[in-house]
């Protein structure tokens, strides 16, 4: 169950904060669709050279945030800046430094890959035809192939190749591996990692595949119902959020008042707790309630993310009562 009332937002600082150059900076970024708030006062910063993974369940506001960052949507309130420039006023010279892989990889369906490459070349000053060809070879695609004849995964690859061949300083990808099979996803990710290793590149990407994020991201943000709940490094997130298995001698006692409790899974005598900022005080509190055995579990980002985002207030109340 999610104990939203007890949850503390996780935030992390940047080492050497004064010296960092920011590629992305948002301040209380907010967007309403009519009276529905899709993104609510989102504030985060991505320094140059950082790989930032934006996570969140469906409808949490990831795509809206990304569109506001790129100037495709105007914020209702707040600001988004890319390389210090307000995103809905990005001059062409700055756009030349930004690559965008859109969700679903929608491209012109009747065009061939070669046509799209010609189209990109005409606009982007740093277009690299050789690198584009290499990427097509790597993905086993032919320039004459038409987009409408390609699978989802192949379109994702074309989309990535078209964007990377423009040699962007900032790459923004909206769920790039959505609907892509594991083999293609692996290749896609390898290309992304290669690209990231090139000096000075900044990447912001949203994803549902947490293993991918875990593999490449330096820093993560978790959006939930339009609110940025977490903004810290991956290591900090794992360190601050711990899954703990607790075995009691008798039935599981009430645990809802445990500080930093994010999630509880309870059976008759055993609980798995997800706790923010877990330390000795938690262990002492659990011992006082009759815990016989306490074990900190190895957790993947996926486990922690699911705990952090699962359920809602109703489930929380009903399951909390069940536990009590």
């Amino acid at each position: 169950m999610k104990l939203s009332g007890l949850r503390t937002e996780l935030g992390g600082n940047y080492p050497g904060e004064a010296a960092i150059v920011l590629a992305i900076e948002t301040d209380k970024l907010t967007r309403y669709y009519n009276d529905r708030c899709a993104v609510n006062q989102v504030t985060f910063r991505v320094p140059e050279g950082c790989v930032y993974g934006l996570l969140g369940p469906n409808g949490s506001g990831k795509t809206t945030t990304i569109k506001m960052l790129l100037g495709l949507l105007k914020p209702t309130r707040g600001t988004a800046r890319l390389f210090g420039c307000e995103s809905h006023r990005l001059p062409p010279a700055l756009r030349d430094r930004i690559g965008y892989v859109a969700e679903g990889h929608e491209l012109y369906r009747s065009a061939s890959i070669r046509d799209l490459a010609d189209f990109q070349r005409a606009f982007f000053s740093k277009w690299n035809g050789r690198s584009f060809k290499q990427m097509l070879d790597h993905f086993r695609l032919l320039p004459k192939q038409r987009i409408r004849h390609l699978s989802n995964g192949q379109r994702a690859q074309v989309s990535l190749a078209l964007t990377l061949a423009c040699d962007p300083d900032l790459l923004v990808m909206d769920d790039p591996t959505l609907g892509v099979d594991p083999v293609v996803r692996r290749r896609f990710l390898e290309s992304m990692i290669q690209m990231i290793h090139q000096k000075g590149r900044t990447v912001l990407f949203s994803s549902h595949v947490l293993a991918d994020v875990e593999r490449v991201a330096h820093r993560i943000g978790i959006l939930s119902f339009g609110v940025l709940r977490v903004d810290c490094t991956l290591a900090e997130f794992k360190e601050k959020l711990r899954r703990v298995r607790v075995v009691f001698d008798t039935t599981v006692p009430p645990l809802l008042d445990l500080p930093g409790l994010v999630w509880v899974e309870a059976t008759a005598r055993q609980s798995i707790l997800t706790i923010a900022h877990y330390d000795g005080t938690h262990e002492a509190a659990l011992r006082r309630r009759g815990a016989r055995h306490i074990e900190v579990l190895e957790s993947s980002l996926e486990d922690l993310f699911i705990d952090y985002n699962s359920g809602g207030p109703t489930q929380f109340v009903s399951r909390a009562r069940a536990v009590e």
Partner: protein
Amino acid sequence: MITAIVKKDFRAGWFWVAGVSLLMVAYAVLNLAAWPAEFTLGRVVRPFAMIGIVEVDTRFPLVRLSDGALLAVLYGVGFGLWQALPEVGGACGFFFMRPCPRWRLALGKLISGSAMFWVPGVVATGLATGWCTWASLPAPLEAWMVSAPLVGWLVGYLFYLSAVAAAWRPARWYGGRLLPIFVPIPLGYVMLEVVPTVGIAWVVGMVYVVFLWLVDVFLLVRWEG
């Protein structure tokens, strides 16, 4: 950059131009070769049709081409939506992230669309004009005879620009989204049926064309989604 958009659109939409050009040429040939088109018992080949009626209607082959307005309107609406919708639909991210001011993107789209729209009308009218210049008609060919059929195409062009506006305007409900397409109907009627001279029809039409260009560019510059 504008050239790149024009090239892309021509590559993608050549079949529209080729298909409608063929239809228009067929229509022109039909008009040149047979009169009146309403004859149901076989069409009279023009040399025979001309016997006895040349005094009455020497301008017939060209003026009749303005009936092509219906085809032009259908072409304008269909082609306009086809050309403009992808840019604000699925491919919007790909299109708008170009390092280029939005007004230039809009101009590129309108220039390519306009060129592709006018090709069939101009080809058909050119063919008819060529024939009338070459054929020994008993009356001289005058400029208005050529521009009259193009008024029909101009009406279709208003529908093209309106369809682009419908595609690019922010709207969710599809019925409401398509409203701009119906706006040129009364104007088209006035241009084709009410105004006394071809010249006035052109002036009225061109004023509205300029207005629609501004509207279309404005809509694309302000587009978000």
